[in-house]
């Protein structure tokens, strides 16, 4: 194929993270430099599967002029789809029956029709599996990892994490001022169902009294003891940061509760483990509520839960994410140029590498027990929920 005429596409999976436009811009500018045409697919795969739903046909030509007019801090130009799975597309058929149909073959045909010979997808963990499945059916694909929780394996930093981290730290600072003023113990829940990077790094930055993460099942008596030690007449407040997937080492006596369990969080998570219904992927708030309630039984000071949850998905990207987004976008185009296929762009400082999708799927990037961050937290006197 004449490189001047090469046409590639980019789309974005479900789940918003700040600064999505920077990834799109990085890919568009890099493609433009090669003389390639980059088109954006609207709303996941929807623009290709249902072009009739869009006045412009579901594809957006991403030329330099358009890219230069984009607000880096604005919402994603391509939109997103809650469901990006072409293997299970929900529709109402001619008989008015609701059904899920496999449109993966149709999707591959549509790409051919549009003369698109490679697809760059900005996706989270679930999206990587779907793209891998499409790759096995013949799709030429390069994925870009995006994750607020930084839980995607095979890359040091996923796109979106740094912005979420910065905003979480800012919120923890504000909450700290509030708990100082109110003389209370704030229990702040942050995102992180299976990995505790966000809680750990933000908690360290805010110098929390305790940080509870999924990787270290916690004993709330240990947390209460630390708070008792810290709280005094001259310091009548406390700050506990809890990841939404944090777990108790043992269930409280007479209760079947764990952080992350309860009526709302029960039984909803495809990623769940342990007893049925210990985690949730959608709803938040139960971990903070549970920890705050249990600590309240052990401490005289008033505790109260605060849930940051999905709030951190919004807002402008940080300087790091703006650079990372551009680098990931350009890196994906370089991967296509290098003939890479079925790979994910990975940040391995100082390099942007490509790793096979099989190295990224079915893995969760968790905080290792010997992580330097854990040692830093301990050396700062931050309680991690149990003696390590």
């Amino acid at each position: 194929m004449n490189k001047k005429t090469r046409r590639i596409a980019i789309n974005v999976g479900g789940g918003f993270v700040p600064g999505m436009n920077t990834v799109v811009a990085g890919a568009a500018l890099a493609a433009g430099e090669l003389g390639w045409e980059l088109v954006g697919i609207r709303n996941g795969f929807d623009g290709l599967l249902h072009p009739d739903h869009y006045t412009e046909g579901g594809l957006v030509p991403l030329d330099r002029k358009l890219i230069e007019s984009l607000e880096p801090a604005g919402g994603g130009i391509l939109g997103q789809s809650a469901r990006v799975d072409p293997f299970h597309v929900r529709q109402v058929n001619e008989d008015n029956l609701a059904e899920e149909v496999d449109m993966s073959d149709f999707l591959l045909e549509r790409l051919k029709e549009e003369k698109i010979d490679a697809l760059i997808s900005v996706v989270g963990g679930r999206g990587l599996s779907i793209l891998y499945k499409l790759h096995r059916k013949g799709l030429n694909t390069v994925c870009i990892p995006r994750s607020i929780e930084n839980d995607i394996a095979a890359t040091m930093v996923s796109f979106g994490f740094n912005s979420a981290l910065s905003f979480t730290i800012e919120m923890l600072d504000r909450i700290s001022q509030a708990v100082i003023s109110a003389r209370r113990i704030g229990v702040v829940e942050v995102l992180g169902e299976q990995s505790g990077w966000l809680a750990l790094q933000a908690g360290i930055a805010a110098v929390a009294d305790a940080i509870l993460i999924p990787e270290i099942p916690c004993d709330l008596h240990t947390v209460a003891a630390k708070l008792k030690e810290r709280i005094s007449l001259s310091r009548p407040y406390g700050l506990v940061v809890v990841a939404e997937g944090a777990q108790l080492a043992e269930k409280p006596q007479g209760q079947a509760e764990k952080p992350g369990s309860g009526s709302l969080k029960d039984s909803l998570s495809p990623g769940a483990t342990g007893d049925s219904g210990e985690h949730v992927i959608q709803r938040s708030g139960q971990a903070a509520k549970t920890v705050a309630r249990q600590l309240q039984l052990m401490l005289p000071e008033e505790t109260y839960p605060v849930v940051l949850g999905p709030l951190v998905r919004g807002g402008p990207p940080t300087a790091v994410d703006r650079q990372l987004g551009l680098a990931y976008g350009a890196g994906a185009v370089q991967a296509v140029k290098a003939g890479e296929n079925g790979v994910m762009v990975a940040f391995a400082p100082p390099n942007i590498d490509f790793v096979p999708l099989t190295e990224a799927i079915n893995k969760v990037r968790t905080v290792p027990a010997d992580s330097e961050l854990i040692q830093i937290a301990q050396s700062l006197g931050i309680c991690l929920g149990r003696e390590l």
Partner: protein
Amino acid sequence: MNNQTTKPSEKTGIVLNIQRYCSHDGPGIRTTVFLKGCSVRCKWCSNPESIRPKPELAYDVSKCTGAEECGLCLKSPFPEGAFYVVDGADDKIRVNWDLATECDEETASLCPTDALYMFGKELTVEEVLTEVEKDASFYRNTGGGMTLSGGECFLQPDFCAALLEGAHSSGINTAIETAGNVPWENVEKVLPHVDVMLHDLKLTIPERHKKWTGVDNKRILENFKKAYETFPDIRFIARTPLIPVVNDDEEHIRAVLEFIRPHKNVIDYELLPYHRFGTGKYEFLGIVYELSDFTTPSEESVQRLQAIIDEAFGRNKED
């Protein structure tokens, strides 16, 4: 599956479950046969395992003994990449639901603790009726019988008709639960063998019906009206799953009453207050539950709406 030349007793259908001693699916004590496949997508669905038409993999993590002790599903013949463990957490198996779609019944059955299993199985009419007939004496003593539920049982009309006809032949009372969103031909084929039809009127405004169930209700209402008129001997019971903010308002209840009251064979209208009992099953299937923010309706709200129904049916509190 339902070849026209097949003997009725040999017709097959995809059955989700046969539940004995049911008391809320029609009169008396009943055996309810749940069929797989549904033609609406209610966001409050408490039976998500009944939605897809074919048997599908399910996973009960509480039964998994972990990768170290077992780990069978991490190797062939289980599909590559379908199951995995996470470093640093416990060693329980996780399911990659996108890659596990190739795991069939034969493979799932290799799981020694039954943590992996299938929702749905192909059964013959004879196999189902053999199970149903075990409780024939209960049906006689309580006025009960067999109820077909789902999913949407009208989606398997030949199997349903043969099952219901077979039950009638054995003197068993028959009932059917339906949302009614099917071609009329399906309804027409099944109803000659039905004694009681419990049917949902979830929402009366088409746009709202489409928003919450995925489809509009035009054909549903047409089907029910036609059924009332074509089958005068069937006892119809209308029902509304009462979902806060969606349809727990007087306007909806009165609209349903206006629709059913002209038809004397609609003998009752029941409210089914929303519950969250089905949420655990979403986890078993790896599906996200979409209605997490809703609460169950208050007793006061249910009583207030029930009073409107009682008044319309000429019942007072002492009845």
